[in-house]
């Protein structure tokens, strides 16, 4: 009951590069799995060369973005363009419970690392692929990023103001939530089943299909033939006011959500029962919704005079859902998150101490798993070659010299 490494003993051969896939295997590594990240300086994982960078550090070891996605993994430097590397990868695959990749269709096949190749030696392997739009279909070769998948899925079009261009989340959202989330759920479910049946299988997470699932209700609504959707900013059908209101200072905001009349009366009380609140149109939800422009203007008139955090505290005290809009700086200094021990400082071998998000869940009564910083490129090649392949030092040195281990 005191273990913080519930996945100890699980070996993962990881060909997930960039964003979404790397998050899947990070979750496994953070819970104790041995995740062997295959990478090479011959063609580095794009995330290793993605900003932000720590200054004056080896350029392949300086990416904070890479570090944020690769904690607790081990790095095995393997130059896949070399035929010998492919044989070594196949030997590693034979010893892993899970093999993951997020390349375009055809790459793993070219390396002799298709599901069929691996399961011949290792029939109980769980094999995850995360192609953009799937391994089949007319668009299987199409290229994309999180933001273009978000656009395809309908998420972008629905987010923003009605009279402005749509904006989505402002991030490559599918890379951060639906795709890593569905990917890790799928692998864990397959491992659960495997423990009972002894059998493996392959899993395909097409990033578009995964992302459409987080718009399930909206898709059903469209399928059933509802009225056309019009972007609506922060408004929703069942609450008013429901928005982001300006507070004292520059670019300071508080989000407020009022559904019930009771919450409305509390909001008015917190504002000191201003004169406008006597207007009978505001007394009911229907009235507030029907006069939402005016409603938002009078509420903003009140919030402008307040500090966003004081306003949040006061509203929450009176049971009105509200939160100051937190920037990253606010989050890092957030007393609540600190009290929960959310932020971690990990010691990175090249960058020194770096700030890491903790896991968003914990087992009550147990310490949080340790977050060891991301590996240096090839940091564990020798260790793993000796341990898993029984390799002698002379052979290792030769493979380094031949730039197979590179």
């Amino acid at each position, binding site marked *: 009951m005191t*273990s913080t490494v*519930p*996945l100890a003993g699980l070996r993962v051969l990881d060909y997930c590069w960039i964003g979404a896939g790397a998050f899947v295997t990070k979750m496994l590594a953070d819970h104790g799995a041995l995740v062997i990240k295959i990478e090479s300086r011959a063609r580095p994982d794009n995330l290793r060369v*993605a*900003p*932000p960078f720590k200054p004056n550090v080896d350029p392949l070891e300086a990416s*904070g*973005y890479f570090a944020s996605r690769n904690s607790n993994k081990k790095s095995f430097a393997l130059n896949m363009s070399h035929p010998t590397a492919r044989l070594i990868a196949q030997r590693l695959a034979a010893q892993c419970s899970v093999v993951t990749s997020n390349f375009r269709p055809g790459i793993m096949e070219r390396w002799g690392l298709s*599901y069929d190749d691996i399961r011949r030696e290792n029939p109980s392997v769980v094999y995850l692929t995360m192609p953009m739009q799937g391994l*089949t279909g*007319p*668009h299987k070769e199409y*290229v994309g*990023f999180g933001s*273009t998948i978000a*656009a395809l*899925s*309908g998420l*972008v079009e*629905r*987010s*923003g103001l009605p009279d*402005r261009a*749509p904006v*989505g989340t402002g991030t490559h959202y599918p*890379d951060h*939530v639906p795709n890593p989330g*569905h990917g890790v*759920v*799928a692998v864990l*479910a*397959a491992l659960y089943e495997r423990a009972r049946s002894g059998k493996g299988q392959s899993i*395909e*997470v097409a990033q578009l299909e*995964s992302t459409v699932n987080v*718009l*399930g*209700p*909206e*898709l059903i609504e469209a399928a*059933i033939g509802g009225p056309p959707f019009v972007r*609506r900013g*922060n408004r*929703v059908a*069942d609450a008013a006011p429901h928005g*982001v209101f300006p507070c004292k200072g520059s670019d300071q905001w508080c*989000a407020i959500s009022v559904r019930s009349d009771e919450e409305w009366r509390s909001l008015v009380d917190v504002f000191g029962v201003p004169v406008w609140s006597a207007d009978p149109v505001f007394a009911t939800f229907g009235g507030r919704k029907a006069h939402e422009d005016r409603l938002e203007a009078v509420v903003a008139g009140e919030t402008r005079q307040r500090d966003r955090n004081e306003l949040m505290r006061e509203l929450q005290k009176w049971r009105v*859902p509200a*939160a100051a*809009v*937190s920037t*990253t700086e606010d*989050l890092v200094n957030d*007393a*609540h998150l600190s*009290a929960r021990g959310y932020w971690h400082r990990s010691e990175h071998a090249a960058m020194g101490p*770096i700030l890491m*998000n903790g896991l968003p869940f*914990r087992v*009550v009564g147990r310490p949080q798993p340790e977050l060891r910083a991301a590996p240096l490129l090839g940091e564990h090649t020798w260790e793993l070659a000796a341990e898993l392949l029984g390799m002698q030092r002379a052979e290792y040195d030769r493979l380094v010299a031949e730039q197979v281990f590179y």
Partner: protein
Amino acid sequence: MTETTGERQPAGPLAGVRALDLADVSAAYTTKLLADLGADVIRVAPERDPLAETEPRIGAAARASARYWFDNTNKRAVALDLDTARGRAAFETLIRDIDVIVETGAPGSMAARGLGYDHLAELRPELILVSVTPFGQDGPKAGYLADDLITLAAGGLLSLGGYPDTAPVAVDGMQSTYAASLAAATALLIALLERQATGRGCWIDVSAQECIAAALEDAIPELDLRGTVRRRVGDRPREAGSGVYRCADGYVSMIAGRVGTAKAWSALVQWLNDEDIPGAEELVRDEWNSFLHRQKPASIETFGAVFARFAGARTKAELYRDAQVRGIALSPVNRMDEVLVDPQLVARDFFVPLRHDELAREVVYPGAPYRFSRTPWSLRSPAPRPGQHTADVLPDAPPEPLPVRPL
């Protein structure tokens, strides 16, 4: 309503797992994930289930909730009021062969009913209790109230969304509920795997705020390494060639200049020149190959003007097809009705029609978020009516008689 609408399929990977869903809208998707993978999930809610009244509402007089339909496929439903002694007694009977409970009550509310983890674990040591709340079980904000917008604000994603000249704008579709649900499902599956070895359950505390704070892309390392607070940039591209651009019939989204995609930028410039777009010749100059140059406001402006001349005369579909031929990551900004006819999704038989007997019609649902080769995901039955299976599930311990709702 029929129990099963499809043909018999092989069982999903979670067949045999039994779960109770006590969650509100903030985490009901957790147990949809389990149910669609074969678990037996029983939704436990009052007879008037608040989830059945959440947006988006559909149909005549808005009597149904598309969210309730989506979140509750493959589940059974029991009407139980945990605030009554009889309801609690029935619940204690119910949990004796249950593996997982997912609940979203305010911290302390389960314990206040006498149904805290310690008590439940005495009755059922193997139980995995998953508690999903906006701010977690402890800490100074543990009791704070939140909905999706408040969670996005507290977790930081709202600060990245919207236009620089207006208030921040939240992403649509209650995305914080998916972030929390996917984390909750991850946590409980890890606990189930561990239980296979130890035989013991546990109590899992999921904070939706923390789930959102983990979804901020490079913004945390950006602050940590450069001291820069990332802010919303809205509809203005961050770099020439990357962003949302207007075209003849809407918008397209393009990434043609990110690190590692220099080839895509060259292909884009070639395309504009092949089509003789005025001003495109300027983009051939060498300095444009540097992303530092492409990130200058003047470059973003110059490129935007050239691309507007080009895209303004072309449709989303034309741009999508022709860009992809050239290896450029460009996609249409689809409306939901366009997603329903996306050629790729249609060709892969993604969408699943599900018979709704009460409507005497089929309704199209999103298909599998993942495709398993041996133990498939499946949609077997639509969401139950609240309380539909009370008599089946609790034949020996009926709760108090319930008033019949008028149709």
